[in-house]
Each structure stands twice: as C-alpha cells, then as structure tokens.
C-alpha cells in the first residue's frame, strides 16, 4: 500500500523527532556534565567554562577519590551489601517462587494469600525499626541484608516466569527418576532460568547499590556506612550548609576548585557500575517489567 504523508503529518514528524531528541538529551546531559566536570582542569571548572566536553582533561580528581580512605571504605561497604544482599535475595526468591509455581503444591494458594497481604498492609517505619533493633541487627551489616531479604513483587515475577517456562512434566519426570525437589530446583530449574536470574539479580542489585533508606535508619557506625550516606554528606549536606558538616575532606584539600571537582568525581565513581553495565543489561531490565506485567 502506498501511503502519502500530508504536509501536516510531515510537520508533525519533524517536531516529534525534535522534541524527543530534546527529551533524550535532557536526561543525559546532567550525567555528561558531571563526567566532563570531573575530568576537566580544576581552574576551568571553577570558572564555569565546562558546559559539555571536558577542558584539558586530567585524572587528578579520581586520584584523590581513590586515595581517600573514607570513600574507599564506603565503596567497599556498598559492594559488600550489593553482592551479599543480592545473593541472599535471588536465592530466597527463586527457592520460594519455584514451589509456588507448581500446580500440584497443596499449600500454594494459602502461601500466595499470605504473601500478597504484605503487599497492601505493613507495620510502617516505626514498628519495623523497633523490631530490627530488638533483633540486635541495628548497626550490623545484616541490617542491610535481612530486613529486605525478599521482595513480594519480585517473588511474584519469578513465579510467573517459572510457570511459563518450566513445564510440570519436566519436574514430574525428574521426580519419578528419584530426584527430590531440592535437587530438581538446583540442578534443573535454576540452569533453565538464566533470564529470570539475571532480571532478579539486576533489580535487587540496583536496589542495594542505591539503597539510602536502610543505611539511614539502621546504620550509624561510620565504618559500616555505604556510598549513599557518604554522597549525601558530600553532595548535599556540604552544599546546603556550606561545608560546616561533612566538609572535613573539602577543607583539608585547601582548594575549593579541586574540592568541587572531587565532588563530581565521587558522584561518577558511585554511578560507574550502573553506567558501565547499563548498555548491556538494559534489555534484562525491560524484560523484568514485561514478566512482571503478565497476569495468570
């Protein structure tokens, strides 16, 4: 079929593309600017000459970031919480989602109701805080892992995935061959479920990497604090209160221009893993939304 575009449609197409290009650029620009500023010569940053591309690129701010023990410790903590937390999350979520995806499992519907209720009702901030405290988790690394061990939403997503991709016949056949369900889960189900493992690991991983809520309320020991808390100190508190709080590092540098740059570099270092992996992992993120949107 030959379809001729009218003048109006051509004008629309041009504007449509321009507006979308502007939207795209506006989401990217703040990050690009931060990256360029972190790489530019300190003087150029101070004189506000950096607009898009780095000016006289240098890595000095990154050298300072990576020689600052406070940042390194926070970075290490974030990595620890992300790796251990994600491992626990994915293991528990898939282990529970598998039985709940089997039609023959007798407790299936009652457990589903039990979990669904928690998606609508919760105790709220204060009772949860008191509980975590009384369990002795306050100011321990486990406060970052255990209270968020399973997300009901992700569990539902994994269950839908197993229902759709692991046929009952397959697991039944393995059972007849004498394998128990735990072995079936680890030997047969998990190896067949790489896409959902990737999606879950990404969702949980990003949530841990960016987590601000849990360290804010459960961690006051500076040795256990992750990057999010450190970033708040450097990017926000120091900015709003003019460096009277959390500005020790900026002061010791004795150089405002360089301090400004180090701020940018710190933000980039915190963003780095997400920026680097994003192009490759993006399709898994999208996949997760699609699986999550499926209804039985």
């Amino acid at each position: 079929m030959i379809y001729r575009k009218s003048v109006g449609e051509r004008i629309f197409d041009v504007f449509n593309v321009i507006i979308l290009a502007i939207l795209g650029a506006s989401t990217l620009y703040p990050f690009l600017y931060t990256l360029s500023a972190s790489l530019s010569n300190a003087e150029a940053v101070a004189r506000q000459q950096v607009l898009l591309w780095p000016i006289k690129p240098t890595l000095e701010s990154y050298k300072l970031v990576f020689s600052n023990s406070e940042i390194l410790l926070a970075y290490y903590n974030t990595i620890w919480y992300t790796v251990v937390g994600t491992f626990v999350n994915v293991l528990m979520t898939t282990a529970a989602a598998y039985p709940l995806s089997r039609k023959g499992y007798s407790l299936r519907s009652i457990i589903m109701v039990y979990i669904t209720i928690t998606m609508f009702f919760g105790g709220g901030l204060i009772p949860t805080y008191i509980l975590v405290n009384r369990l002795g988790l306050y100011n321990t690394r486990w406060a970052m892992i255990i209270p968020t061990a399973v997300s009901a939403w992700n569990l539902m997503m994994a269950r839908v995935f197993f229902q759709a991709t692991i046929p009952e016949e397959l697991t039944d056949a393995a059972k007849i061959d004498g394998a128990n369900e735990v072995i079936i889960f680890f030997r047969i189900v998990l190896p067949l479920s790489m896409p959902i493992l990737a999606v879950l690991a990404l969702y949980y991983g990003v949530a841990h990497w960016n987590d601000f809520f849990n360290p804010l309320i459960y961690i006051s020991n500076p040795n256990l604090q992750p990057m999010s808390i450190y970033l708040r100190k450097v990017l926000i508190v120091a900015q709003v209160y003019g460096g009277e709080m959390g500005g020790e590092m900026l002061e010791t540098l004795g150089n405002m221009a360089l301090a400004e740059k180090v701020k940018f570099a710190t933000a980039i270092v915190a963003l780095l893993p997400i920026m680097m992996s994003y192009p490759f992992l993006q399709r898994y993120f999208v996949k997760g939304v699609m699986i999550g949107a499926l209804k039985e």
Partner: protein
Amino acid sequence: MKEETILRVFIRRFNREKFLHLLVLPTIIYFFIFHYIPIYGIVIAFQDYSPGSGFLGSPWVGLEHFRDFFNSIYFPRLLRNTFLISFYSLIFGFPMPIIFALMLNEVRNRTFKKVVQSVSYFPNFVSIVIVVGLMNIFLSPVNGLVNLLLQKLGHQPIYFLQETRWFRFLYVSSGVWQSFGWGSILYLAALSGVSPELYESAIVDGANRFQQAIYISIPSLMPTIILLLILNIGNLLNVGFEKIILMYTPRTYEVADVISSYVYRRGLLEGEFSFGAAVGLFNNMVNFILLLIANYIARRVTEYSLW
C-alpha cells in the same frame, strides 16, 4: 478410626511435599518476622511505648496520640503538603509516560527510537541521593549552571533549594524527569501489541495519523492506564520520606514537610515511637481507603479494575 486416616493422609502428603516446604520455608519465616510482626507492632500506636519493653509491655493510652496529632498545629500543614506534592506528581507525572510512548510510537526510524528509549530509562536506575545531589550542583547560587544562565540574562541568582516557592516545582519536575522514560515501558509494550491491520484499515478509511492515535492507540492503552491510575491514586497520601529529607531544609519545612518525613523526625530522630507509629498508621489507613475508592470508581465507570 476415621480421624487416624485423615491424619495419615495429611502426614503422607506432608512427606511427599516436604522438599517443597523446605524451599519455601525461609521466605515464610521472613515474611512472618519482617512483615507480620511489625503489623502486630502497630499496637504501640495505642500505648506509651518505652524502648526496652515489648510491643505489649507498655501502658495503654487509647487514641491519645491520634488526638494529639489531629490537634497539632502541624496536622493541616502536613496533610496539605503531602496531598499537594503527591497530587502534582500525579497530574504531571502520570500523563508524561503516556505522551512519551505515543510520541515514540510515531517514530519510524528504529535506531532513533531505540536510542531515545534507552537513554530515557537511565535516570530511573540512578540513586535518589545522586539525583538530589545533581540538583544541588546545577542549582547552586554560587556556581550552578542555572544561576549562571540567570545572571547572564541579568537576573539575581536564586537560592532555589532554600526558597519555599520552588520546592514543590523542583520535587515534582525532578521526579518526572527521573521516571517518565521507565514509566513508558508498559505503554510501549501495549502499543506494540496492537495489530497493524487495525491501522491499515483505518488508513483505508481515510484516518490521518492524529485520528489513528485517538481512535486506535489511546484506546489500546486504556486498560494499562486505568490500572496504573488506580494504583497511583491509592498512593496519593504516600510520599516517601527519602527524597523529601534529602531536599528540604528547615527553611522549606513550611511547604516540604510531609507525613512520612514528620514520622521520621518525630518518631525516629526524637524517639517518640508511639506517636510516630500512630501518625504512620493514620497515613496507611488513608492510603488504603483511597485505593478502595479508586478501585470502586474504576469498576463503576469503566470495565477495568484491580479486583
């Protein structure tokens, strides 16, 4: 005898499924401890809880904390701020992904479409601390790019984050910026599921692109729109405190302080656990009622609803 057989059937079934139970058990325990016990812990909203005593070990005071909250001078302010911030977020944040998806749907160049899509998702994965940090950097009155531009245009620099009239605008617009791309995924999926034949026959009937969007694309999005709208309305008094406390300063409390940030300050920072729990409970109940109302209206007015 009959009871014995029932018991035996039960035990046999339990044995047959014991490995399935084993797999799901840790999660059941997790939800019991970290979701059901805190629900039970709400009882402290009706007590004078003192740290060290259990959820039931403190004296009962009935509705005293609720009365204190409703009579407090902060109550109208918190309600207004929470509602307005959430309402503006909904009004501006809800249509954006739909419009964005419809616009992307009209793009014929696949590469361009893909690039814009991928780029627009990115801010969703950036930590809220960094988003607010970037705002601080760009809006800084001393060396922020925005104020640099204002000064070039002959304006005085504005201390955006310290001024009450800018707070809601900044909160809502940064939220829209962060989530419009990611929010469009479900709509784009719904649009890609529309059969091309529908468009072809519309073209035969002489419909232009605008009419195709109105009569084919938008109706095909309706179930998704209604579903997400109900969920959003159910969250109308649910403004998380993280972004608020990252953005506000005592100078902007007047417009920025919401119920959750108040619970955080009074309940956690000042240690008034029972009062905080009461305020939190009030907030949750209002949210749940809003969800019920939204679902009821959706079911009456349209053919779609959550349940």
